[in-house]
């Protein structure tokens, strides 16, 4: 499935975006743990899922719609969001994409076709189907893509939207990020879930006559190649499509408050995972999409290790600048709470 993957330049851009997501999320965790009052509730980071977001968004055009979830930081950056306004939104600053109104749960970015970010499990899927409905009615060749977690299949809303998308042949791409998969299961075979009764997540979509695909979420090229094909077919009037991206949860991503186990990501781990915290080693070796992409690019001779490290250094610096930008931005005035209730 790695055939017809993106060209090296594109891959460098992709790697940069993936690094940027990782470095921004590290800043988010650091902000949440260093300050009591910046991120007061729980929040979710996208570490370990970067290849899916970036690989999928590479296939989208500027007029397409994207819907995301509680785990939205990475999706918005993958779609081209700038790290400054993203962090600013997450810590509630007026320079954030919603001027601090939505916070970590609701990074919304209108100029990127991200119009409403639901933190309700399965909230985004019907709305994304609605965007697709509107595309079809208006007769444009846009695409509506929605990211969501495996948990969404447990909610009835998903099934209702799935049915209508299929019945009405909507230009909708449903990208399910299944982050409950062990490395072996990611590439092949069955994977059980304690909370969903189907053998494979895609079985239900297939039963509803929706074309389904399974992709290795550790492999940015595979995701990009698949999505490029499906986005093209969607523009031609095919669709909807259901994709399961198989991911292995980053070990820092347990519970409601993520933890930077072993500290920020070290590029050295990519070539020597054994130097990382024990809980991370297996994940870095077999599942981390950033490490996997770096290693394969270097192994293939497409980039040198130094070039890869330079991309990381850039991303790291951008994330740090974004943090400073956000921290030095003004907070909303109390009375502004009463603005924009109605149009």
């Amino acid at each position, binding site marked *: 499935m790695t055939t017809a993957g993106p060209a090296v330049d594109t891959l460098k851009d992709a790697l940069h975006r993936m690094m940027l997501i990782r470095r921004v999320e590290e800043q988010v965790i650091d902000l949440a743990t260093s300050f009591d009052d910046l991120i007061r509730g729980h929040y979710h980071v996208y570490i370990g899922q970067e290849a899916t977001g970036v690989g999928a968004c590479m296939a989208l055009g500027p007029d397409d719609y994207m819907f995301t979830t509680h785990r939205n930081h990475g999706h918005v950056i993958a779609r081209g969001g700038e790290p400054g306004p993203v962090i600013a939104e997450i810590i509630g600053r007026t320079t954030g994409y919603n001027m601090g109104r939505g916070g970590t749960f609701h990074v*919304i970015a209108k100029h990127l076709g991200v119009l409403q970010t639901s933190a309700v499990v399965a*909230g985004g899927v019907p709305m994304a189907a609605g965007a697709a409905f509107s595309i079809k009615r208006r007769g444009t060749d846009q695409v509506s893509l929605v990211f969501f977690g495996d948990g969404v299949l447990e909610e009835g809303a998903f099934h209702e939207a799935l049915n209508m998308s299929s019945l009405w042949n909507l230009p909708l791409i449903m990208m399910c990020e299944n982050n409950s998969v062990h490395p072996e299961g990611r590439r092949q075979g069955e994977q059980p879930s304690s909370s969903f009764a189907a053998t494979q997540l895609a079985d239900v979509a297939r039963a509803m006559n929706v074309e389904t695909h399974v992709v290795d979420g550790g492999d940015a090229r595979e995701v990009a190649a698949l999505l490029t094909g499906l986005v093209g077919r969607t523009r031609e009037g095919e669709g909807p499509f259901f994709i399961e991206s198989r991911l292995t949860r980053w070990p820092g991503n347990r519970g409601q408050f993520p933890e930077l186990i072993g500290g920020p990501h070290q590029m050295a781990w990519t070539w020597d995972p054994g130097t990382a915290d024990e809980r991370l080693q297996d994940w870095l070796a077999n599942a981390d999409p950033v490490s996997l992409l770096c290693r394969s690019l270097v192994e293939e001779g497409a980039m040198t290790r130094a070039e890869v490290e330079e991309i990381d250094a850039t991303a790291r610096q951008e994330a740090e600048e974004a943090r400073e930008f956000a921290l030095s931005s003004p907070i909303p005035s109390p009375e502004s709470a009463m603005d924009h209730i109605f149009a």
Partner: protein
Amino acid sequence: MRQMTYSEAMAIGIQEALAEDERVVLMGAGFGGLRGDPAVWSPLRENFRDRITNPPIAELGYCGIAVGAALTGLRPIVAIGTGSFSFEAFPQIANEAPQAHYGTRGQVTCPVVFHMRAGIRGAGALQHSIAPQAMYWNTPGLEICVPGSPADVRGLIKAAVRSDNPTIFIDHERLHPVVGDVDESGGDVPLGVADVKREGSDVTIVATSIMVPRALEAAATLADQGTDAEVVDPRTLVPLDKDAILRSVAKTGRVVVADETQRSCGVASEIAATIAEEGFESLRAPIRRVAIPNVPIPYHQAEEDYITPTAGRIVEAVQEICR
């Protein structure tokens, strides 16, 4: 000016909204009510066939689709049917649509109209008689229309569609056959402007939706008894024309709030609380609510009538506070 039924006026208003703006689409076609007059509703279904989508029985899904469509350039009117069916779609109606504009500090709009038939319709029994407008009023970010006359239903549906906000549009099966004058060349009824349906000086009756004709009937009875009641119809709950209500209470000093939602935390509670807070100095008597007592809706007519807030109940309430 022509006499027509509420049902016909609504059909005309929806057709006008469709004709004026091709972004307007209908999701579902159940506006006519159970015994809706086909003569009134079939032109709409025929003239705008390509603008109507008949969804599966999936309220949460299709209301969400309407929200998504509204965020991306359409202006959907969703016919949910019986008001309690909107419960199925509560997460999208109450927890997505009203947050979009506020959550982006005004960057996006969500111009969707959720239309439902609410209230005691006659044998709707436990699950088909619920009026959910109070629950939606407890949800900031939703506009709420509760038209009680043919002219208002036509003018408000057009205004609701034109509004950039998500709007709950409440109609009532028992209003469908009500006849009234409609100025066919007239435009929208603006949101947030109450209508004094009858002027009077002794007592104010604030009434919404189906309670408007009942309040007028009560006022006629009261007039015979020598009590001159003013009937104020807010027409929309959000925005609420508080001034008009307070102005009337300032004049009469006495008020009955009549509404066919369940009593506790109902529409009448909110209006009464507002008056007790901001119109207290004018009050010369307790504020009476005429609403459904806190009871589910029974099936048999004897019981159903017993709990229905009728004109008679309004008369009694007025008599109590005008002694």
